[in-house]
């Protein structure tokens, strides 16, 4: 599925972590492409390496991570080869990230306004007044009630949903080409989850941003994604168009995941992975 309109191309990415017990492979030979304006869901359980992929794209992996091999092509360049300063200029402007728990992603001692405004100040060189105006507009756009008050608040004063909207504002304020969303709704109340999800979808449609949506929830992926990448212990086990995969899953793991989705009216036993493979 390679086309000229691809925003991101990942080839044979292999990443390990150095631990006290030696090197542990987190991600092995992962390859995929992301088209412009498309949403790719990376699905897998904890430890499948999905978060590592996200961190690698922004090159904010922890210090004990080793990129063994592979390339990440963005904007015609392999960003793994870029020097730190060039990469820094991409972060927050061309590629952004949203993490799972919004409250700890925000600095507890700084006001919200400052934390949003520092992005355009850094990348666009705006002065404080303009940056704050832009920040406020962005905040309004994300549906935050009483944006002036929120701009003046501290993170611990906000609810989870509001905090995540702030984080989304930070990520989207410069209309990046690529957004990595690492389980953005997992830590939120169910009622808020849907709202935040809708917000993300709206925004990226508006700005034409491509999204890598990392989640453990296959049904959520089905709702939001154009393509799906299923990860199992660091390897890609399924990759393709969302509808294809749901109709004809090729890998037993995918089938097991699909089977695990609770269905109303289902009676009987859930099958384990071994049983499915042997079936």
């Amino acid at each position, binding site marked *: 599925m390679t086309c000229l309109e691809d925003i991101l191309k990942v080839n044979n990415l292999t990443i390990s972590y150095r631990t006290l017990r030696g090197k542990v492979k987190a991600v092995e030979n992962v390859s995929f492409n992301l088209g412009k304006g498309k949403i790719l869901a990376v699905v897998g359980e904890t430890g499948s390496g999905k978060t590592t992929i996200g961190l690698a794209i*922004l090159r*904010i992996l922890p210090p004990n991570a080793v990129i063994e091999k592979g390339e990440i092509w963005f904007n015609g360049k392999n960003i793994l080869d870029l020097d730190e300063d060039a990469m*820094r*200029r*991409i*972060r*927050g*402007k061309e590629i*952004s*990230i949203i*993490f799972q*728990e919004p409250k*700890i*992603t*925000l*600095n*507890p*001692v*700084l006001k919200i306004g400052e934390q949003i405004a*520092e*992005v355009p100040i*850094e*990348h666009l060189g705006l002065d404080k007044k303009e940056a704050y105006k832009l920040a406020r507009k962005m905040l309004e756009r994300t549906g935050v009630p009483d944006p002036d*008050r929120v701009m003046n*608040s*501290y993170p*611990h*004063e906000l609810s989870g949903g509001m905090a995540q909207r702030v*984080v989304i504002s*930070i990520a989207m304020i410069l209309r990046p080409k690529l957004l990595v969303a690492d389980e953005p709704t997992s830590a939120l109340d169910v009622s808020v989850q849907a709202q935040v999800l809708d917000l993300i979808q709206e925004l990226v449609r508006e700005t034409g941003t491509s999204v890598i949506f990392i989640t453990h929830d296959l049904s959520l992926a089905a709702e939001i994604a154009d393509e799906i990448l299923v990860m199992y212990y660091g390897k890609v086990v399924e990759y393709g168009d969302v509808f294809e995969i749901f109709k004809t899953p090729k890998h037993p793991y995918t089938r097991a995941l699909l089977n695990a989705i609770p269905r109303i009216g289902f009676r009987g036993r859930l099958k384990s992975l071994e049983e499915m493979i042997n079936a």
Partner: protein
Amino acid sequence: MRVRKLIARRIALMIFVLWGIITITFIVARVIPADPIGSILGPQAPPELVEKLRKEWGLDKPLYQQYFDYIINVLHGDFGKSIKTNRPVLEDLKQFFPATIELATFSLIIAVLIGVPLGILSALKKDSTIDYLSRMFALTGVSTPVFWLGLVLLYLFYYKIQIFPEPGRLSVGVQPPDPITGMILLDSLLRGKFDVFLDALKHIILPSIVLGFYNSAYIMRITRASVLEVVSQEYVRMAIAKGLRRRKVILKHVFRNAMIPVVTVIGITYGSLLEGAVLTETIFAWPGLGRYATQAFLSLDYNAVVGATFLIALVYSLVNLVVDVLYIYIDPRTRGALEG
């Protein structure tokens, strides 16, 4: 405002603690010693003298009466007379207090100037040689007896290699400036007597280094731990993910958070400096509260004991009050949720 309520509560605590301090000094001075006058005057004392002092001190009254009188006296600053100097203790305190404050504050500045940068450097360059050496320094620093260090350094740098002058605040023959604050460094600057200032400076450096040694080690450890903790936080990762420059990330996001516990520690450090002063003033012939208190303890000069202990505890409590109030301002999380 929420902040005002918190501050008010903190001040109320301080008042309660002050009452507690007065009570404990009372216990030390009147309740515990079996015969305060007898132990001072000795068994040979003529009984009339003992009786006279007893009445003078109000020791013939019942204990609870003594307690109330005591509280009222302390609140008026009346600690009685010192047996040694034969002056009201309050006068003694006024005389010796500035010297200790000057020494403690100067040592604090040195401790912070050494401890904080070393701690930050250590944390940012974790596991490097600098980190390792700094940690060795810190561990040794908190294990060193301050009075021994003072003796050794005095021997080395005053007697053997004559870098520093003799113990004391000023050289013999140098007149202190007319007192404004009682602190020679400040007063000499305010009065324009720069030669006196230099002399005083030369005299205060060695005792400050000795006093500050333990505390710079302690501050370094706390700073390092704090920076390390902050650096591993999610919001620092987010700051990098925003594409902010490294310097900005460190200054704005790391420091602002890492310095919060360090500020609290400075309050505790001041207490440690006051203790250390008790030990070092004897060695450096520093005419301060510490030396006064020690002599009072040794000679069982109870009024002086009470006065000195009370004053030291008061100063310590005030410093901690200031630090706690400051903390309310620098850490927004203390203020709780928005009203309304």
